[in-house]
C-alpha cells in the first residue's frame, strides 16, 4: 500500500521535479527571459548587456555565459541568482560560441575581425586568436573534443580547428553563406546549413569531404525565404532538426537518407534550437514573431508558441 502511495506522490510531483527551465536571450530587449519548459509560462525577465545573442551553461551548470554583442563581451551570470558576476574578453562583436567538452575552453567567433577567439574559462583570459575566413559565424565542437569547426559566411568554408594546437588543419568548401554546424552523435559526420543556398551539407569527418546534400523546399513558400540556420542532432536517433529562418518552419531530417520527413510550422524567422533535458521537447526561438515554439519530439507536432519578449535569439536549457 505504501508503495502505491509513494508512486502516486511521485507521479503528482513528477512534473515539478523534472520541469526544465529555458533561458532565452532577447536581442532587442537587452534581457534574458526565463521560461518554464513544460507549461511554456514566462517566469521572469532579467536585464543583460546590449544585444545579447549566444548563450550557454558552464559544464557544471553553475554559470551562464551570454554574448553581449554590442558590448563586445561575454557576460558571466550566476545560474541561480542570474546576477552578472564577471566578464570574458570575447573580442569584438561576439555572437555564437561553444564550450569544449573539457569544460575549460570557450570558442567564440568575431565576425568583424575574421577570427575565432579561444578563452580559458578558469583564468578568464583570451588564450589565442585563430585567423579564419571572412565573417566567421557558426561554431561546433565534436563530442569527443577532437575537432572544433567554424563556418565563415563570406568565404563559404568550414574551417577544421585542432584544439590541441589551436590551429586550422583543413578547410571544406560548402554552399553559400554557411551559418550553423552540428556533429553527429558518433562524431563521424558534420552537418552544415547554408543560408543563401537553402541547403544542408553532410561532411565526412575523416575525409572532410561532402557526402550528401539536401535542398529544402516548402510548398507555398518562396525559395528565397528558405534560409536554413540552426541545426540540432537528436542524441538517440538519426533525426536532425533544422531551423529554416523566414520560412517559419523547422525541418525534420533523416540524417542518413538526407530526406526531409516533416516541415513543422513555427513562429517567424526561426533561428536557434534546443532540446529539453529528457529529449521529449524541442524549443525554437522565433525572432520576428517574438515568441518561442515548443515541439513534441515523439509526435513531431508543434504544441505551443509563447511570447517571451522582443527578438528571442539564443536558448539554453537546464
Amino acid at each position: 500500500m505504501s508503495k502505491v502511495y509513494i508512486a502516486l506522490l511521485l507521479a503528482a510531483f513528477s512534473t515539478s521535479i523534472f520541469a526544465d527551465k529555458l533561458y532565452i536571450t532577447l536581442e532587442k530587449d537587452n534581457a534574458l527571459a526565463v521560461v518554464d519548459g513544460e507549461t511554456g509560462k514566462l517566469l521572469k525577465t532579467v536585464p543583460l548587456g546590449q544585444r545579447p545573442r549566444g548563450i550557454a551553461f558552464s559544464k557544471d551548470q553553475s554559470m551562464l555565459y551570454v554574448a553581449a554583442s554590442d558590448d563586445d563581451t561575454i557576460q558571466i551570470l550566476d545560474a541561480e541568482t542570474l546576477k552578472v558576476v564577471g566578464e570574458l574578453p570575447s573580442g569584438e562583436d561576439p555572437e555564437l560560441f561553444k564550450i569544449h567538452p573539457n569544460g575549460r575552453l570557450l570558442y567564440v567567433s568575431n565576425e568583424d575581425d575574421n577570427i575565432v577567439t579561444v578563452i580559458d574559462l578558469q583564468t578568464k583570459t583570451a588564450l589565442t586568436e585563430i585567423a579564419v575566413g571572412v565573417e566567421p559565424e557558426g561554431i561546433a565542437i565534436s563530442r569527443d573534443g577532437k575537432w572544433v569547426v567554424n563556418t565563415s559566411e563570406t568565404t563559404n568554408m568550414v574551417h577544421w580547428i585542432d584544439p590541441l594546437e589551436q590551429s586550422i588543419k583543413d578547410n571544406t568548401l560548402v554552399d553559400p553563406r554557411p551559418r550553423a554546424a552540428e556533429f553527429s552523435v558518433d562524431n563521424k559526420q558534420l552537418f552544415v546549413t547554408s543560408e543563401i543556398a537553402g541547403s544542408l551539407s553532410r561532411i565526412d569527418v575523416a575525409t572532410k569531404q561532402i557526402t550528401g546534400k539536401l535542398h529544402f523546399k516548402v510548398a507555398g513558400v518562396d525559395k528565397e525565404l528558405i534560409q536554413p540556420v540552426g541545426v540540432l542532432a537528436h542524441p538517440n536517433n538519426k533525426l536532425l532538426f533544422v531551423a529554416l529562418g523566414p520560412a517559419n518552419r523547422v525541418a525534420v531530417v533523416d540524417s542518413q537518407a538526407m530526406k526531409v520527413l516533416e516541415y513543422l510550422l513555427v513562429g517567424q524567422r526561426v533561428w536557434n534550437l534546443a532540446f529539453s533535458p529528457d529529449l521529449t521537447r524541442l524549443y525554437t526561438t522565433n525572432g520576428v514573431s517574438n515568441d518561442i515554439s515548443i515541439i513534441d519530439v515523439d509526435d513531431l507536432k508543434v504544441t505551443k508558441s509563447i511570447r517571451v519578449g522582443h527578438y528571442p535569439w539564443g536558448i539554453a536549457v537546464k
Partner: protein
Amino acid sequence: MKLAHASIALKGIIKRELWRFLKQRERFVAALVRPLVWLFVFAAGFRSTLGIAIIPPYETYILYEVYIAAGLIGMIQLFNGMQSSLSMVYDREMGSMKTLLVSPLPRWFLLMGKLLAGTSVSILQAYVFLVVAWFYDIEAPWLGYVTLFPALVLAGLMLGALGMLLSSFIKQLENFAGVMNFVIFPMFFMSTALYPLWKIKESSELLHTLASYNPFSQAVELIRFALYGQFNLHAFVYTLAAFVVFMAVAVWGYNPSKGMMVKKGGGPS
C-alpha cells in the same frame, strides 16, 4: 401529452428521417463531398495564410486547413439544416406535413422531433468528415472529439431551427433558390468559418460587425473551441439564444391558424 404517446411519435419522426436518409445515400455523400472539396482544393491554396497570429483556441501557429476545419463542420450543419427545411417544404406540398401537424401532440414537440432527427444526421456527417480530415493531418486532442458532441447538438439544433423557420416562410419549392442566395451563402461567407474576425476587420469594419453578429459565426466558434476541449461561453449563450428565437418563430410560423401557414393558404380550410 402522454409519455408513451410522445415517444411513439418521436420514434416515428426519427425513423422516417433516418429511413429517408438511408434511402438517399447520395445525399450523405454529397454532404460530405462539399466540405472535403473546400478542404482539399480551396484551403490548399491558402496553406500559409494564417501563420501570423495565434488566436484561441489554438496555442500555436496553424495552417489554413486546420483553421477552416471547424468552419466546414459548421457548413455541414448549415447545409443539413437547409436540406431539412427543403424537405419540409416538400412535405408540405405533398401533404404529409399536414398529417403530422394535425396529430394531437403539441406542435413544438413535433417540430423538435424533426429537428432532433436532422441534427443526428448532421452529427454523423461531421464525425465522418473529421475522420477523413484526420488522415489529412488535421488532428484535435482526443478529448476534443468528445467535447465536440454537445457543441454539435446545440449548433445543429440552432441551424436546423433556422431552416425550419425559413421553410415556414417559403411558399413553394421553387423559391428555395432564393434562400440559398440570400440566406445560406451570405451566412457562410460573412462568418468566421473561412477567416478569423481579425482578418475580416483588416478588410472591412462593416463586414467585421456583420460577422460578429452572425449566429453562424457563433456556432462555428462554439464548435472550434469544443474541438480543442475548450468552452466558449459567449458563443454558447449566443447560439442557445439564437436557437430559442428561431424555434419560437418556427413554432409560430407552423401554427395553422396564426402563423405563416394561413398567409400561404396552408391553414385549416
